[in-house]
């Protein structure tokens, strides 16, 4: 309990734009406003064909609701500040980086190569050093998954430098 109060105090001592509640509020409001503006560019049903409400009305209503509720939790946080979250460790950012690498490789080279690279990257950065286990997660297991999906479920994976070796 004391720990939570300390964290809350630590968060309250920061300038408002560094506080978690402001960051969350700012991002949600920014995205919601962007989406709300984009609803004005949706096509409209001509009045003669229109039955009920326009296609943009429902999402507009939802976005307004989200904006109101987000503002409400932000104002509530003045009275009851959120606790300050721990700093994210390096392994978190490396895992995010592995997702970006996965997207690049899967788009340009090969889907399974991307899975293998991500697996070995994550496993190594999370502390695995044993070669057998690195091979297990990066080659053996993805191969088993590939065979299972391909042969049992009859799935065709996107072409790529490794997948093509199997298909052609």
């Amino acid at each position, binding site marked *: 309990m004391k720990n939570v109060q300390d964290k809350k105090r630590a968060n309250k001592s920061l300038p408002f734009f560094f506080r978690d509640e402001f960051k*969350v509020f700012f991002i949600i409001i920014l995205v919601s406003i962007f989406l709300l503006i984009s609803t004005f560019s949706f096509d409209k049903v001509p009045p003669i064909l229109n039955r009920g409400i326009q296609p943009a009305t429902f999402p507009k209503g939802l976005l307004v609701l989200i904006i109101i509720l987000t503002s409400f939790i932000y104002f509530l946080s003045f009275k009851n500040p959120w606790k300050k979250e721990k700093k994210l*460790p390096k392994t978190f950012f490396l895992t995010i980086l592995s997702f970006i690498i996965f997207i690049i490789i899967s788009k340009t080279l090969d889907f399974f190569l991307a899975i293998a690279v991500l697996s070995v990257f994550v496993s190594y950065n999370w502390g695995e050093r044993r070669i057998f286990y690195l091979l297990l997660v990066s080659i053996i297991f993805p191969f088993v998954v590939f065979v299972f999906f391909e042969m049992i479920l009859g799935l065709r994976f996107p072409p790529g430098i490794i997948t093509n070796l199997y298909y052609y």
Partner: protein
Amino acid sequence: MMAPMFSSKLLLVLLFGTLFGLILGVLPGLGPTTGGALILPFTMTLDPLSAVVLLTSIYCAGTYGGAITAVLINTPGTPAAAATCLDGYPLAQKGEAGRALGMATVSSTVGGIFSVIILVFFAPILANLAYEFGQPEYFALAIFGLTMLASIGEGSPIKNLIAGAFGILISTIGKDFMTSIDRFTYGINELSVGIGFIPVVVGLFAISEMLTQSTLLDQVFKRVALKAVKLPSKDDYKKTWKTILRSSGIGSFIGVLPAEGGTVASLIGYSEAKRFSKNPEEFGKGSIEGIAGAEAANNAATGGAMVPTLALGIPGSATTAVILTGLIIHGVRPGPDLFREQPEFLYGIFGAMLIANILFFIFGFFGAKIFARITLVPNKILWPMIFAVSVCGTYSLSQSIIDVWIMLFFGVLGFFMRRYGFSVVPVIIGLILGELVEGTLRQSLVIFDGNWLMFLTRPIALTFFILSLIALAFPLIRSKKDKKL
């Protein structure tokens, strides 16, 4: 009723589902929801009944499996087992892990079977009532479901409402189903068909959990040794039978309400067990009643949550949302018509849930020691493997790489949502209810000629709106009451 269950294929599916569910339940971070989402693409090779039997057996066994980890390593395998840690682990530390697991197994089985009986009796009654429902009533019911989720779900009700509204917003992406006008597609053709359920659910549960695990690598679990699971003694039964029955009732009731099912049920079951106990001071120090109260309630919520899912097509929990998706993918639309047209299909589901509860009782007793060993698989090996299955499973549904990227996006989003106290469950329920909410609203307005006030002239709809207002006011009343205390 049991006729469809006699097929050997179905029994095999049940056996596999129960084992798989137990493994998922045991592994912290996974669970029946994520596991159900991961297995959903595989169910495409099965007939509809086998697919749903597989998903429901995972649901029942996975909910119980969380107790094994809760007792042995003080980490709930599933959120629903969080209350089990409070007394399960202290009892295990006293050298009575077998007794703790034995009580968890018995009370989970009783709770589970009790809830299946509730399901068999109440789902048809609710389905019959739903015959009276038109579009305005369904709209009001969906709104009631979402407000209940906000008010009795975990965490801040306002944050839950935002998450639920966000889930509904996601469902509006793509071509408008009434006019075929593009919404939020920004010229990307792949978005015209909307965002699939699987990429969102796998992202929000599996990938966000992978990111959470990446922040917890320094965490070391202290594991308590387990020699064998013991049946509770006569004294234990004398002490706990009332608690088990009470929690089974609580769990079934909470399960019926659209909320986070087992998690809320186990917390209420636990606190009620403490309130009625002759020895409340033992709670938190290894009380056998505490284990019974939490475990009977969370397993009873499984059958309860299936009641609105099957009778109305409104999911009672996150896992039943996955089951509902499984039904829809296989062309089965839950609701009153299902009860009239395909009763044998429903009997198959009821029977499967009953057998799954018996199977996990057997596996729990004889295999808990083995399942406990699964917790020894290090995260640095387990999660890259889960990633590979998540990616292939997500890709397999529509064979689109965009779906995989959407999954990763929702994974990152889900991580930050959880970090800042937003539950991801309302997003899933909102997404699945989105089309129903918007469709029934718009069709109602067509019926009412655009007059919103006409909703108030429909008694059933009006009742649901009043209940929604009460549900929204409930957290305010509760917090004021807590402050007074």
